[in-house]
């Protein structure tokens, strides 16, 4: 129990709140890399999910990728991305392989499957009668996708984004192993130096950041859930949330 007092002292020590190894900078590095990765992944995965759901093609592939994705350890993805980038880069640019670049690549790869699957399941869950009615009203395929299916799938797509974001924040912790920054630095350095207060403080900060991420995305998810005419929010259709309990973990 004494350790927790040490951890509290470490976290409240002003010396740990400034400089190149300070908490604010480490938090920012962690958030920055996570944001970049989730943004790239969303830009790729949401259109793919929309198209797979709308055209009903390659469905098998979309589900398989999610299932296989769960079996691949995120730790392995990160380390493999690192060695691949290291191998590909010319001798003069090897330093680029440490930290940011391979981490973003790995995080994007990890974030894509849950977003694709959830977007696709969200569109698939749209009542076929509603789609037919929209067609009957003269909506084109494109209009059906953008004005009907996409808004109705938004809550589930958002749930996928939430899963992806939490996974990304968790895995970004491991970036410190390949020379990256972020809060994982405290854990990796703490383990290496046997500095328990620093180690546990880093873990506590990572846990808090992950929970904040989860809550922020839960709020976003609520915000995109359509309201019914009575002003109440419709209960989000959540087959994916039940069906694919959070694809991958780090």
């Amino acid at each position, binding site marked *: *129990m004494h*350790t*927790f007092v040490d*951890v509290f002292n470490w976290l409240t020590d002003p010396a740990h709140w400034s400089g190149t190894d300070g908490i604010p900078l480490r938090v920012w590095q962690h958030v920055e890399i996570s944001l970049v990765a989730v943004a790239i992944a969303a830009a790729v995965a949401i259109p793919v999910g929309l198209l797979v759901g709308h055209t009903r093609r390659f469905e098998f592939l979309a*589900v398989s990728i999610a299932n296989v994705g*769960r*079996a*691949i*350890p*995120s*730790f*392995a*993805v990160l*380390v*493999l991305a*690192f*060695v691949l980038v*290291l*191998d590909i880069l010319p001798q003069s640019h*090897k330093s680029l392989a440490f930290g940011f670049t391979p981490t973003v690549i790995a995080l994007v790869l990890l974030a894509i499957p849950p977003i694709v699957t959830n977007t696709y*399941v969200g569109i698939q*869950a749209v009542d076929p009668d509603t789609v037919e009615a929209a067609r009957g009203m003269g909506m084109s395929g494109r209009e059906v996708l953008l004005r009907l299916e996409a808004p109705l799938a938004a809550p589930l797509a958002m749930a996928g984004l939430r899963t992806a974001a*939490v996974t990304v*924040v*968790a*895995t970004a*912790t*491991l970036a410190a*192993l*390949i020379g990256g920054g972020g809060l*994982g630095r405290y*854990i990796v350095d*703490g*383990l290496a130096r046997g500095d*328990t207060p620093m*180690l*546990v403080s*880093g*873990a*506590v900060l*990572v*846990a808090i950041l*992950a*929970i904040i991420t*989860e809550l922020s995305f839960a709020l976003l998810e609520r915000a995109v859930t359509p309201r019914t005419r009575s002003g109440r929010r419709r209960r989000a*259709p959540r*087959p994916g949330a*039940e*069906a*694919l*309990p*959070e694809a*991958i*973990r*780090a």
Partner: protein
Amino acid sequence: MTFIAAPPTAWEWIADHRGEILHLAIQHVQLTVLAVAIGTAISLPLSVYAFRHRATYAPITWFTGLLYTIPSLALFVILIPITGLTVWTAEIGLVSYTLLILIRNFVVGLRGVPDDVKEAAQGMGFTKRQLLWRVEIPLALPAIIAGIRIATVSTIGLVTVAALIGKGGFGQLILEGLNQFYNTEIILGALLSVAFALIADLLLLLLQKVLTPWSRARPARVMPERALRRSEELVAG
């Protein structure tokens, strides 16, 4: 950056390290089996409780969801001051992650048991306990095993992280490969972990087929909504 001049070929390396690889494989299997077994032992009674008392489902999934949100490395590390660098540090973390997955699937399975079947059993004089063990749990088995499959596959992936706190498993190969810039070891660690996950998934699927010969329903994890609707249709028709 200097690289090893003439590294052994991948097969030579594997042949030279057979003993170590086998040892890590046993560790990986042990850590996984123990976590899923304890997770199931905790989740089953909790799920039955949450199924019978609907109001408790939300708080239970809220709490297990919170545990699930904490990154594995962080949870392992936070446990170090309490349990030290023992196997329990890894196990408590691994078990925590199985709970959300298992409870969600178990409850979906229990809720999917058709009412008229339960009424028929009660009409035949089944007690609540008999109803649970002889009707509800057997009929929920496809969903229960589907949950165990997902939990097992994700636990196998998480065990690789346990290598960072010195608990072995295939993650050890990845970590050593990373430290020595030896790609063969990294790829081997990743492949063995994925292979183990796929084999475990397949074995559990087979177990489900053997235990529920009457069931040809798709596993609940693909589209539970649809599966539920189908069972409703069966009831209606």
